[in-house]
């Protein structure tokens, strides 16, 4: 894509910089009431009784709802992504009935004139709680004798799935070496700076519902709400306004509050708003990452992988509202950039009395990468090879595409890599970080009691999955171009990158293209922003639509300019005869002329409209023709397109404090054709920062009763500008053959390999101590423990 690809400044920024963003809590419809939720303080408890009388009587309270008040409406949420192996799926009701299964589960909702009063009233609700034993540690959840999260789910097992490629048994039997690792990743959460929120307005005169929701998938919410509330779909609109970060948390569908607030707005015939606060977010928004793997790899004498197996437990929390997508992604992404001819994976999804698990940026890939890369490191160590040499010996080569992993990906299509160049990427990363210079530096530092280490990690990412997205492009008489799509934006720069794609087709200025996302009243088809898919699907759909508009421009332009189509070009917002700049029409004038209704606004448009006064024969619109310069387009990919990357970092570990600091961080990244490199790099920076959080800072601590001990930003540690290093990014572009733009997704990439890389780097730094890393996240205290344990082991005779 030529012309407007490049580091264009974002069109959405001036508004946001002026403080004129419109996030859900900024939206205050006249007369809006405020909701507050009574949430379970226990991980597991029976509700023996609930008395809301004092709350109802509190001045300023309009309503208090419990499960009893909801009646039939209080149905379990739809299981949005069913799977045959999810034999014991369970979803939560908007309000708990006789028991609660996780801290934070919604039990009652107060609606009042302001949030302060609503919270006062929540405090007045009396619940007769009968605490039950809580199932917290997922690693033992399926063992006999453990508390059951759901009485009718034996051994807390929600799902069990075995997938096999080739003949792993033979591979293991005949291998020169077999290595096994126990690997553990503990839970974290997306924690966007804007928590969740919903505002609902019901107009009883029009019988229509308008909902602003900080969601990543408004169309799905709209259709679901219409169904639940018994309204026709065209009477329900959902708008995702400016959204302050999503990271997967806001793709979770039909959160209790998303359903309760619209329902209450209909009951009360007044707008209702619920703004989630930070404490609530920690205990009721979805989380992710908890998995425990027993992984084995079989290799030949040269370290080439013959087979691999991972048996793992996946913690789904108290319910399975998003199916088992995350562990499926873990399975399919585990082979990563390597050839794994024989592979067996077996996972068990278990319930625990903790908040629900659904995708958080990475969505099971960070765990998969951690496992695979730890195995690579093990192979290297055991065979006395450099880890990157093991990587090189096992990489899928640039000549191997399409490379079929042999599994079914999360979209139901084959897990088949389309393009890439992992060896070139790794080499570039090595050059950028300058391994030989580092080794010299490391050696010198050790003389002075300083421990520097280097780590690498490689990964692939399946992006741009279907089912499809759509786009609508229209040139207006003013010359502005409207581009609409159903996907949403939480900061990814869609308003700019999508504008670039459309501007490229129409030959106009990027600044003249206005993009609208996430408004169901503007576009009715699509799925949403998640799984690193928006640019690939919506971007290409807008490309299709823009090309169709381009065709109309050329056709009408040829007619009005009395030239042949081949002699025309679209440039600088005009259609013009090549080599004859005087023979041109602005796109706006053309748009006026394309709509033969006699009215014209603006000078250029008037000129064009005079065309219409000429004598003519027949109807202004022939059969099948439409007025205006507009078109819709759709894009449905065959399958995912595979991005990839190689990260490298130099770290320092302070053996006294156990602290980890990054000295350098390098990313080589391949997301195919780059529309806007600055936006791509921004996505990578943010992903790496969350990856660093997940490796060394972020961990959710639940006590035995299911209380979240660190439910605040004081104790849930997201890295600051001091903890995140400068990140050097280099790009490799292997275009995707699977879409016209040749693009691949990048949203989650930065997070995927960080934990794996940090493990390798720490082991390298602390090699003199013989430290082994097989868990994430770490902490200074844990590093100290590992040093002590390792030294102790080495000291024994």
């Amino acid at each position: 894509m030529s012309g407007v690809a490049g580091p264009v400044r974002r069109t959405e920024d001036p508004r946001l910089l002026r403080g004129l963003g419109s996030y859900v809590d900024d939206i205050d419809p006249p007369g809006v009431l405020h909701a507050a939720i009574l949430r379970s303080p226990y991980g597991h408890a029976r509700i023996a009784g609930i008395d809301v009388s004092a709350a109802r009587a509190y001045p300023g309270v309009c309503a208090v709802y419990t499960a009893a008040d909801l009646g039939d409406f209080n149905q379990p949420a739809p299981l949005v992504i069913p799977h045959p192996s999810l034999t014991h799926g369970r979803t939560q009701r908007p309000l708990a009935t006789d028991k609660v299964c996780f801290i934070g589960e919604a039990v009652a909702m107060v609606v009042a004139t302001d949030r302060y009063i609503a919270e006062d009233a929540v405090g007045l609700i009396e619940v007769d709680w009968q605490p039950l034993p809580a199932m917290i540690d997922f690693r033992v959840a399926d063992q006999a004798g453990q508390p059951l999260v759901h009485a009718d789910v034996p051994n807390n097992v929600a799902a069990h799935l075995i997938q096999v490629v080739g003949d792993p048994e033979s591979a293991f039997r005949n291998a020169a070496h077999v290595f096994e690792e126990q690997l553990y990743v503990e839970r974290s959460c997306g924690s966007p700076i804007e928590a969740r929120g919903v505002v609902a307005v019901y107009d009883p005169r029009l019988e229509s519902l308008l909902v602003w929701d900080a969601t990543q998938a408004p169309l799905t919410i709209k259709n679901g709400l219409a169904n639940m509330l018994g309204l026709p779909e065209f009477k329900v609109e959902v708008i995702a306004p400016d959204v302050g970060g999503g990271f997967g948390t806001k793709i979770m569908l039909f959160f209790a509050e998303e359903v309760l607030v619209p329902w209450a707005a209909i009951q009360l015939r007044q707008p209702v708003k619920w703004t989630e606060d930070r404490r609530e977010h920690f205990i009721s928004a979805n989380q992710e990452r908890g998995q425990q793997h027993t992984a084995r790899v079989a290799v030949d004498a040269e370290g080439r992988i013959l087979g691999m197996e991972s048996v793992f437990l996946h913690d789904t929390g108290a319910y399975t509202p998003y199916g088992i997508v995350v562990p499926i992604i873990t399975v399919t992404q585990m082979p990563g950039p390597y050839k794994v001819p024989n592979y067996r994976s077996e996972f068990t999804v278990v319930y625990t009395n903790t908040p629900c698990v659904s995708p958080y940026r990475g969505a099971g890939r960070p765990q998969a990468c951690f496992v695979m890369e730890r195995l690579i490191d093990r192979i290297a160590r055991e065979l006395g090879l450099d880890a990157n040499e093991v990587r090189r010996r096992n990489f899928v080569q640039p000549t191997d595409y399409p490379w079929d992993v042999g599994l079914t990906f999360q979209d139901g299509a084959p897990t088949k890599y389309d393009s890439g160049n992992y060896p070139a990427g790794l080499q570039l990363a090595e050059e950028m970080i300058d391994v030989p210079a580092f080794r010299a530096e490391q050696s010198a530092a050790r003389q002075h009691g300083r421990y520097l280490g280097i780590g690498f990690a490689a990964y692939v990412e399946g992006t741009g999955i279907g089912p499809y997205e759509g786009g609508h492009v229209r040139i207006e008489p003013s010359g502005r171009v409207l581009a609409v799509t159903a996907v949403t934006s939480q900061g990814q720069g869609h308003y700019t990158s999508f504008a670039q794609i459309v501007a490229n087709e129409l030959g106009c200025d990027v600044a003249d293209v206005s993009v609208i996302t996430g408004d169901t009243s503007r576009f009715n088809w699509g799925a949403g922003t998640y799984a690193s898919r928006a640019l690939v699907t919506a971007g290409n759909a807008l490309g299709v639509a823009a090309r169709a508009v381009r065709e109309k421009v050329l056709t009408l332009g040829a007619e009005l300019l009395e030239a042949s189509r081949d002699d025309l070009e679209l440039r600088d917002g005009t259609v013009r005869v090549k080599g004859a700049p005087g023979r041109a029409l602005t796109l706006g004038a053309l748009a006026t002329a394309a709509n033969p209704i006699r009215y014209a606004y603006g000078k250029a448009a008037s000129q064009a409209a005079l065309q219409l006064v000429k004598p003519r024969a027949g109807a202004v619109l022939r059969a099948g023709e439409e007025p205006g310069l507009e078109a819709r387009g759709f894009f449905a990919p065959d399958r995912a397109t595979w991005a990839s990357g190689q990260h490298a970092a130099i770290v320092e570990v302070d053996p006294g404090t156990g602290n980890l600091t990054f000295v350098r961080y390098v990313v080589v990244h391949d997301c195919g054709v780059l529309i806007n490199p600055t936006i791509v790099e921004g996505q990578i920076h943010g992903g790496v920062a969350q990856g660093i959080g997940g490796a060394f800072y972020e961990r959710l601590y639940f006590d035995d009763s299911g209380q979240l001990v660190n439910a605040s930003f004081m104790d849930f540690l997201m890295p600051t500008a001091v903890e995140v290093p400068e990140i050097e990014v280099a790009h490799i572009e292997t275009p995707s053959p699977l879409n016209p733009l040749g693009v691949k997704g990048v949203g989650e990439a930065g997070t995927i390999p960080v934990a794996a890389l940090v493990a390798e780097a720490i082991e390298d730094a602390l090699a003199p101590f013989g430290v082994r890393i097989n868990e994430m996240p770490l902490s200074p205290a844990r590093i100290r423990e590992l040093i002590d344990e390792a030294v102790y082991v080495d000291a024994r005779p």
Partner: protein
Amino acid sequence: MKPAPFEYVAPRSLDEALGALADGGADAKLLAGGQSLIPLLNFRLARPSLLVDLNRVAELVYVSSRDRGVAIGAMTRQATIERDAQMRQAQPLLFEAIGWVGHPAIRSRGTIGGSLAHADPAAELPAVAVCLDAQLSIASPRGRRTVAAEDFFVGYLTTVLEPDEILVETWLPPLLPSTGQAWLEFARRHGDFALAGVAVSLSLERDAVCDARIVLTGVGGKPARAREAETLLMGGRVSERAAAAAEAVRSAIDPDADIHATKEYRAHLAGVLTERAIHLAHDRALALAPSALDVRRTLESLGRHA
């Protein structure tokens, strides 16, 4: 997360504040900088019936010299100290430690008195006050009393302040000659509460330590004065005694365990920080010490520069 309802009064004088506090009874709370209290109000972990806001009591805002030391009014903002160039010379430990208190926006509002009265076990200023042997002046309807910092802190979020008392001033004694000081802490992220922190003040006579104060934060309910470690340093050379002093700290403290640190790790950390801080304080004392000046003069007379 919104506060529960409370009555509110913003007195303009200390006497008015004392009166309001006395009238308010046991459920009244003083509001100073609010950087610790307001989060508690927002979480509804504190639900006072009355807030007595001290932010309009101008007479509690001052930094002045007195009796060769520094007197700091309790409502003096932490940022004021941070910007006070003279404080850097006169009270380097306080100056250094204040930069570690949260972030600039916290220090814009946070006060010296508020931090001491709140007595967070991982805060910087309580440990600094104990290390400097600060004298804390307390007002009540019954008059005034002065308490040494070391006697002021009782335990977790608890001081000797009675419900009707207001901390009004912190007086810091002048430093001995050839005193070097250091504040070192380790926190998970920049600006967080310390997992452990140490204030060290060393005075040298020639090469030897003639006065040593070592006070830790984050290792117990209140600032922990490491007397054994101080004794080990007295009369000796830091290069010979620092490790032993650090070990003494490790064994003497009995820290809590929490999600960020085990007991063992905290104790180990305290030792590591103590040793490093002792060396740092020592280096700074040397830079000021007459013996260092002697060395430099000798080198200069030999035509070489130190």
